[in-house]
């Protein structure tokens, strides 16, 4: 039954759309200039709640970003982002006294849905994470599919470079002049080890200076 319902919805949506699309549609006029969007400098604090196997060792992270956004009409910015993130061990692993910090170097873009005082946006960033750690862990999957975590706290300082990937939904709120508030929820899928990706939800709060506004 469900299948037929889906088929009917698709068919009728298409036909309805066909009717609507018969009408001539006006061409968008070129933007004469944005009201609130321009080149930006962003300073943002962040808190990360990790997920999956990574969370079994490193439970959360905190830090900040500085980014520069280059405005492209009508609603886009090209962003360059650098930051620092320090991760916290799970409570039961505190005795290991390990540390893991990440310096992300990311490039990507934001699409602002509207150019107004309240500007919701979608962003995609990717690049590399420079990871420094004093303990490492790997996940071994046995024949029955059980996952066993092996922690190595004898390696001293180790530096890794891994690909990083992040999508976000956020809102930028113009406060006064060129000053804006920025709130964002991000999903991170950073590479770490094959069975232990550094995944997590990131919450960001920051200030944005719109240049030339």
């Amino acid at each position: 039954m469900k299948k037929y319902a889906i088929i009917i919805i698709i068919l009728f949506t298409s036909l309805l759309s066909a009717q609507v699309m018969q009408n001539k549609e006006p061409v968008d006029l070129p933007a004469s200039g944005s009201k609130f969007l321009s080149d930006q400098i962003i300073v943002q604090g962040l808190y990360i709640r990790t997920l999956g196997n990574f969370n079994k060792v490193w439970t959360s992270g905190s830090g900040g970003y500085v980014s520069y956004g280059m405005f492209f009409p009508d609603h886009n910015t090209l962003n360059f982002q650098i930051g620092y993130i320090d991760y916290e061990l799970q409570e039961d692993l505190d005795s290991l006294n390990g540390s893991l910090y990440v310096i992300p170097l990311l490039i990507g873009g934001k699409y602002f849905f509207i150019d107004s005082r309240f500007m919701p946006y979608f962003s995609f960033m990717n690049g590399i994470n420079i990871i420094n750690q004093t303990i490492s862990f790997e996940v071994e999957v046995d024949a029955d599919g059980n996952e066993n975590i092996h922690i190595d706290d004898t390696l001293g300082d180790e530096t890794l470079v891994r690909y990083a990937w992040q999508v976000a939904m956020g809102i930028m709120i113009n406060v006064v002049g060129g000053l804006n508030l920025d709130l964002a929820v991000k999903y991170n899928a950073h590479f770490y080890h094959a069975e232990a990706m550094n995944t997590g939800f990131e919450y960001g709060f920051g200030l944005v200076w719109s240049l030339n506004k």
Partner: protein
Amino acid sequence: MIKKFTNKPLVQYVPILLFIPLLFTSLSKAQSNSIDDAEQSSTKFNNQIFLALSNANTSLDELDFNNRAGLSLAIDYNKLRFNRKLIAKQNSFDNDYVPHVATKHFWLSVGELAIVEFIPWAAAKWVRDWPNPEDNWANVSADTWWRNISYGWEYDGDAFLTNYFAHPYHGSLFYNVGRSNGYSFWESTVWAAAGSGLWEYFGETFRPAFNDWINTTVNGITLGEVLHRLSIVVTDNTATGSRRVWLEIGGALINPVRGFTRLISGETARVYPNPEDRKPDDFIFKFDVGVRRIDEKGSGAEFATKGQQEGILAIDFLYGNIMKDDLMNPFSSFSLSAAIGTRGSALTRLQGRGNLFGWELKNNRSVQHRFVSTLDYNYWSNPGFIYGGTSTVQQIISRFSIGEKTNIVTSAGAEFILMGATLTDYFEDVEGRNYDFGPGVGINLSGTVKSGIWNIVRLRYTSKWIWTQSEPADSKHHLHFIFLDGGYPITDYIFFGIGAGVYWRNSAYNYSQEVIDQIPDDQPVYQTDVQTANPVVMLFLSYAVY
């Protein structure tokens, strides 16, 4: 005995059942918009121009419809007996129509994206016969979605054809969801990435595969833009009658998403001006038939006695001219080449390449240099080796004129491989992956003596380094391919060619003892360094159709 009714056969035809009513509704509209051919032929017109317009189904743009002055010179209006059909014909040409792609259609794109995601998912869930229902990767649920979000990326174990053809093709559909609905080249890349990301996280029970996301998105962009432009070349907005019907069907087969969008926007049936850049100044469509002999084992020495011989059929599209066109207009110049072979994988080669951006460095009558950044898609699968590539090449292309129609064209480029794939010597995944994945870099060099459209002599060399990221990850590969080909143009359209070359691979493995212990018994004995060489020779006949 009560026979249990099954609706499975019906469900198998869901995409066709959906498509047929839409197609026929629109095509009947296309017919009704055009002048009824039979009725026309029964009416005696004394104006030859009008007969040419209506009965021969001649494309209006070929008659320079906008050149009203020219048309009025050709027709003595005072002598015309105006017929209502002539008026209808002229009225049906909607010069003021604003094309669908002139504005962005976000929600229509979202709807089409949902359809493009839904059809293969539904086919897997309800149509495909799974010997073990637990293997059905389409049985997604909130639990599998959350697991995929929590655990993130991995590299999958799919066969080469799936990862380097099926996924890029699916990506081309995602890309064209945007491209057919008013989004630019760069904007449509977001649709490809988003469509692929949604599929990886929510369309399958498996963890999202990073290689799929890259290949579907980036190769999907290459293939998508190529198919978008080719379908524009094929369709003709000014055509009417049966010619229009066939052109619309052809365009929809090349680019189904654009075909569907034209269908529901009413453009399939509307007569209106073609886009100015519908046909590039330079366009070549040719096909080759020939034979190829290649060393299958990779030993090189046994090529003469144990090489594999196969027949090859290839088609090539060369759109635009990279030495003439505006390089800042992405894919204003591109090539698409596909070949099928009689042994091994039927699809033996698929290559797409288009300019992303670039600029002129020097241009005078005898010498020209251009910097060009291209997006490259490579699929090579033959009895000797496989190579898959998703890359961008930064190159300097030079032309040295040595005759009226003869030039030497050279190219030197640095390649950045986002996702490369090459054979591994020790493992084959249960799902068929017998190759390693990873990013890499490469150099590409070529020199060609060209006469007209033909390569009289051409020498190409490429070298690529790939660092394996898929498990087991501790290996790296250095690939080389050198090929010399050339021939003689028998006529302006027929060319006899011959070519010879060598592909060779140096692979370095640094597996732990734990990994070495897992190498199956039927695989070669583990060595840290492996060299293979596959010589190849070929003979072919090319025919330039267009």
